[in-house]
């Protein structure tokens, strides 16, 4: 065991995670705080060059003053299959115009037409909502925000991997501990308020596989409740390379077909066919697989030659490199019959908060996809929610400075958190967490566990998970790189248990949660959040009815409603 020692950082507000949620939370805290308020932002890697946002187009929903805010709010709530905190969603949308102006104030440019109007576009399946993205996409977005934070005096803590939250000598969270992700040096960050913005947990499967979202599990262990564990973002994709644009491809004539060459979507979704919601495409694919009709393809042969080039272009810098370097053979494959299957991008499990982004634990707030305000973050709404919740959380954290008692650290707790990390270091061990991860991915991505669920398959999956966890318990890390991965895998194993159990708990089908044995929506019994609390080492599940002050199922139906609801016209 190494000797106890490290660095203590003292701050007022600590933001953990530097995607859109974290960056906006830090900016908001600095701008709402009194002069001299200390704000720090930590990320496992380089702030401004990491996170889901940095590698996206950074499409974001913006409601202009002349737009119909109520109509947009209602269709987005419906697009979430009512799994949304309606008050929070409305506030995020209502403030989106002001946030756009904040971003422009940081020299981020948004495209405009000749008459000076923003160039926006509709997003998948919605009528009134419009989204836009900055010039330079997510990389520019993230870097401009980093520069803005530095200019306003926010402390940037690059390469700090947070491993635990501190309770100190009271009931509130008083900061976090972690290690430098390269040197392994121990850090304790004492803070009056802590904002977790580490994304929803993933199983290293999304297109940005550095994101693992461990902060949500740290919050859970610290007493915060989680929700939305039964939902996931599972998107059909190609196995060998990254190709986005299903929506546009389908609009231009692409069709999903099975191994027999049959168009299968109309059979599963008679009204919407290939234009059905992404989760419902995944469901149809899983049923095709169950019926022995795989492999499945996105047949792009009907996409006109004249527009094919548009599918191998991107405004995102890394995608631009990607397409430029793709071999001819791969490009041909895109326009022939491209094998497709549903790929799990991320879970939807986040921290339960109120509409002010405060968790149940004093001193602990959450924003971005780590916050469980909505279970579906479709294009544009995704980062829009991160920007909005980040802003709200930063503002609430400042308000909490005056409400909470000054943080007092507990030396025994800090030492115990240090020992927990130290216990997992062993120079003589082999780095083996990847093997556990692969087994976990195989378990959690199986079509009949992750997409097309059934109690008779979820129960055995829990048994298999227990075996994997047993193997994991014997592992140690020979170096810091592996230690970070080990801690991330540990969080994924806990997340897997929660996800499987939450999937068993919700005995209906809704949004991206499909139960073969309960394949109907059940608003009477399940218009509820499934909340998860740590009950003496085992997750405890309960239902909380979803409040519907703005929109309830059965109201005026837009396209979003029709797409989400099975059988609706």
């Amino acid at each position, binding site marked *: 065991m190494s000797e106890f020692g490290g660095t203590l950082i003292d701050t007022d507000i600590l933001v953990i995670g530097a995607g859109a949620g974290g960056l906006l939370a830090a900016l908001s805290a600095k701008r709402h705080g009194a002069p001299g308020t200390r704000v720090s932002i930590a990320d496992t*890697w380089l702030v401004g060059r990491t996170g889901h946002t940095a590698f996206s187009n950074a499409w974001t929903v913006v409601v202009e003053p002349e737009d119909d805010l109520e109509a947009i709010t209602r269709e987005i709530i419906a697009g979430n299959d009512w799994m949304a905190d309606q008050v929070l969603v409305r506030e995020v949308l209502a403030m989106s115009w002001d946030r756009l102006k904040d971003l422009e104030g940081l020299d981020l440019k948004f495209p405009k037409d000749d008459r000076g109007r923003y160039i926006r576009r509709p997003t998948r399946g919605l009528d009134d909502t419009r989204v836009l993205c900055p010039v330079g996409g997510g990389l520019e977005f993230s870097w401009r925000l980093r520069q803005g934070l530095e200019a306003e005096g926010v402390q940037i803590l690059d390469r700090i991997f947070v491993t635990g939250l501190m309770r100190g000598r009271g009931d509130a969270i008083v900061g976090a501990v972690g290690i430098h992700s390269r040197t392994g040096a121990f850090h304790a960050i004492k803070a009056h308020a802590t904002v977790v913005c580490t994304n929803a947990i993933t199983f290293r499967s999304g297109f940005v596989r550095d994101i693992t979202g461990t902060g949500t599990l740290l919050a859970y262990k610290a007493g915060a409740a989680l929700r939305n564990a039964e939902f996931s973002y599972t998107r059909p994709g190609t196995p060998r390379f990254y190709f986005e644009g299903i929506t546009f491809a389908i609009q231009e004539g692409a069709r999903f077909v099975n191994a027999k060459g049959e168009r299968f979507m109309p059979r599963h979704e008679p009204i919407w066919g290939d234009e059905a919601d992404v989760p419902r495409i995944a469901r149809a694919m899983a049923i095709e697989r169950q019926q022995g009709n795989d492999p499945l393809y996105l047949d792009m042969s009907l996409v006109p030659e004249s527009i094919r080039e548009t599918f191998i272009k991107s405004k995102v810098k*890394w995608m631009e490199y990607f397409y430029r370097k793709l071999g001819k053979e791969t490009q041909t494959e895109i326009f022939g019959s491209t094998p497709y*299957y549903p790929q799990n991008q991320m879970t939807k499990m986040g921290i339960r908060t109120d509409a002010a982004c405060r968790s149940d634990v004093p001193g602990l707030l959450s924003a971005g996809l780590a916050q469980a305000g909505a279970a579906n973050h479709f294009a544009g709404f995704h980062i829009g929610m991160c920007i909005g919740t980040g802003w709200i959380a930063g503002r609430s954290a400042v308000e909490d400075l005056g409400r909470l008692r000054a943080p007092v650290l507990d030396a025994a707790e800090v030492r115990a958190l240090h020992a927990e990390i130290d216990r997992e270091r062993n120079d003589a061990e082999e780095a083996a967490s990847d093997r556990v991860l692969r087994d976990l991915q195989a378990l959690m991505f199986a079509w009949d566990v992750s997409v097309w669920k059934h109690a008779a398959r979820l129960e055995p999956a829990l048994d298999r998970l227990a075996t994997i966890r047993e193997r994991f318990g014997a592992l140690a890390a020979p170096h810091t790189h592996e230690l970070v991965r080990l801690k991330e895998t540990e969080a994924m194993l806990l997340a897997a248990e929660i996800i499987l159990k939450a999937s068993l708990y919700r005995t209906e089908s809704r949004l991206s949660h499909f139960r073969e044995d309960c394949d109907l929506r059940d608003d009477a019994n399940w218009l509820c959040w499934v909340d998860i609390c740590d009950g003496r080492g085992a997750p405890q599940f309960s239902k909380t009815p979803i409040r519907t002050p703005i929109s309830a199922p059965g109201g005026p139906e837009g396209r979003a409603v029709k797409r989400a609801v099975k059988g609706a016209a």
Partner: protein
Amino acid sequence: MIETIDVAHCTGCGICDLVCPADVIHMEDVARETEVQGLAQHKLLPVIKFREHCITCFSCEIFCPETIVDVHPVVKNRPRAW
């Protein structure tokens, strides 16, 4: 997935290491012998330390001022299971 870094043309600026969001590239000290036996020249150069964990984000290639990093677009380590 990252393929090569042409270290012969590397200035040792360390940007590739800094921007990597997966801790794949590490700057490491490389000692070169000189005309005086026992004396060495030291330079920090990038090493592809954990290639298997590359996420194919192209950051190292995009931000390298010398354009000496090559990332292949096909993702070889993507989980294949469903």
